[in-house]
């Protein structure tokens, strides 16, 4: 009895150096993967751009100027102007807000809905599991974008609805992932041990199962966010997301498509912004995966 009591204490006493070595390991990993560090830095840069849009943009993204219609990039308008004489740079900067908001919030929604459902399905198994999983299968059979288009049609086009639609479209992935992880984790000895000690279901799920699957969920989130950012752009491009004149990268590309021969710069920058942001998220996510999942791929 006394041995089992001292073991955790000994572990606790060791935890500060353990924490340090984890940091050291993270640093080593980071040095081995400079691309991921750059990716993470660019993501942070975009976050800063979203927050600081009013100061960075320089001019009003909605301000039309009929004397400056479709002007090629100059010093005053580094990214050129669009068909209504608005500054493309300002619109790209403000568009960061919309993309970030849609990309991150939709995945937060998918996690908020998907993880509890997957947790319950994997933990209790049986009929409840079957019901949830058959619904998930059916939900997954609708291609992501078609599902999102359908949901936006029902709810009406707007940024909020596009975000909800993308989130609900991504939900089944999280249900499946969580359930699979829970099935594996719930069978572990420490969970069985905690159960034997009298821990209730809620405590088992929140204290023993969930903390052990968080890192996998986090990795999945870094994969889903760029997908969601692109999905928002696609919906806006199709006219089902953010409505003009609000500056969204997708809507900007929709307009740009009509002026490819006379004002190609209108198409360069918003697309480049989506590409850069998605790529940075993916690079950062790759690094995070290596950090949290020591399996060597």
């Amino acid at each position, binding site marked *: 009895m006394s041995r089992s009591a001292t073991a955790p204490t000994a572990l606790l006493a060791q935890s500060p150096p353990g924490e340090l070595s984890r940091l050291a390991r993270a640093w080593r990993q980071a040095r081995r993967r400079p691309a991921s560090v750059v990716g993470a830095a660019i993501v942070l840069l975009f976050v800063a751009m979203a927050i600081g849009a009013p100061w960075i943009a320089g001019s009003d993204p909605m301000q039309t100027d009929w004397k400056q219609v479709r002007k090629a990039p100059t010093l005053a308008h580094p990214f050129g102007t669009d068909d209504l004489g608005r500054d493309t740079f300002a619109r790209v900067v403000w568009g960061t807000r919309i993309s970030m908001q849609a990309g991150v919030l939709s995945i937060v929604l998918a996690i908020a809905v998907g993880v509890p459902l997957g947790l319950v399905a994997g933990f209790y198994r049986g009929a409840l599991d079957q019901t949830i999983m*058959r*619904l998930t*299968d*059916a*939900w*997954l*059979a*609708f*291609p*992501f*974008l*078609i599902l999102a*288009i*359908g949901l936006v*049609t*029902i709810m*009406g086009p707007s940024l909020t609805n596009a975000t909800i639609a993308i989130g609900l479209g991504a939900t089944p992935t999280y249900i*499946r*992932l969580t*359930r*699979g992880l829970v*099935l*594996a984790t719930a069978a572990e000895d420490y969970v069985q041990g905690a159960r034997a000690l009298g821990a209730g279901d809620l405590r088992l799920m929140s204290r023993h199962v969930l903390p052990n699957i968080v890192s996998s969920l986090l990795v999945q989130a870094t994969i889903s966010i*760029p997908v969601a950012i*692109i999905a928002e*752009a*696609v919906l806006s*491009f*199709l006219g089902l997301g953010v409505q003009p004149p609000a500056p969204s990268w997708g809507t900007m*590309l929709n307009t*740009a*498509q009509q002026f*490819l*021969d006379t004002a*190609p710069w209108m*198409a360069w920058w*918003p*697309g480049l912004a*989506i*590409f850069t942001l*998605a*790529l940075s*998220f*993916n*690079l950062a996510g*790759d690094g995070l995966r290596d950090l949290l999942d020591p399996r060597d*791929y």
Partner: protein
Amino acid sequence: MFDFLVQRAAISVVTLFVISLIVFTGVRMIPGDPARVLAGTEADAAGIEAVREKYGLGDPIPVQYLRWVALALRGDLGHSIRTRESVIHTVATKLPITIELAFLSLFIAVGIAIPAGVLAAVRRNTLWDMLASGASLGGVSIPNFWLGIMLILFFSVQLGWLPASGFVPIWESPLDNVKRMIMPAFVLGTALAAVLMRQTRNSMIEVMSADYIRTAYSKGLAGRVVVFRHAIRNSLIPVVTILGLQMGALMSGAVVTEQIFVVPGFGRLIVESVFTRDYPLVQGVVLITASSYVLINLLVDVSYSLLNPRIRIGGTARES
């Protein structure tokens, strides 16, 4: 084995049933009165009532659902409101175009992804690996509609080599057909190639570290023989599964690509039917899309278990 097939088929039937419920309720949740749309803009209240009566739109919802499913099972998905053509006929004229597009892009994707993935795995942690992985990451991150716009900008607007949009049936002029399909197929193909390459690389790395590969090497076989005769074949099994699961992504991609390149295929039909509130068409098209996804993946799963008896599913190996 037989049990597995039955179980797998039963799950698919349940899934199809749930899909039909989702589609049916979903379409009924689209704002607007279908009877009013069906009757046309000039109809008065009595006209709308007559249409409601004729199509049974006033019946209780479960009755409407059962009637719809019964007809759908016989291949009757109703008629488009706009064109008055049968939904099945409309789909039958549009689908071949998208299937051609899908095959072309599949061809491009597999042609790029498998060699690149194998090369990256065999020459792991070299410049080749970094190049291939980098390209794959870029392929996942690039928004395909922007890639499409950039291709049009470069090849159509700047160079004038390829027509920016439109469609010519293959039997009218194969050359013109390919000229118009090559850019959309490339756009669709890159996204798929990125995913496939990653999967090929990972599974190839796993296979290359298996015991039987070591045995093959240690009995003195040349590296090329080991890779081509022993490793590739086994490493492609999971890749085939991914291909099945990517069908949905391919459909999503087709929606956008066909929109940009004005290809009159199935993807464009979906968007048009949604925008014009053509309820029977939306209902039919979405039902067909989701059902074919289920059936294709059933097929993939079954052929997978036939090919690889190790993964015959008792319920544990397949979870995730």
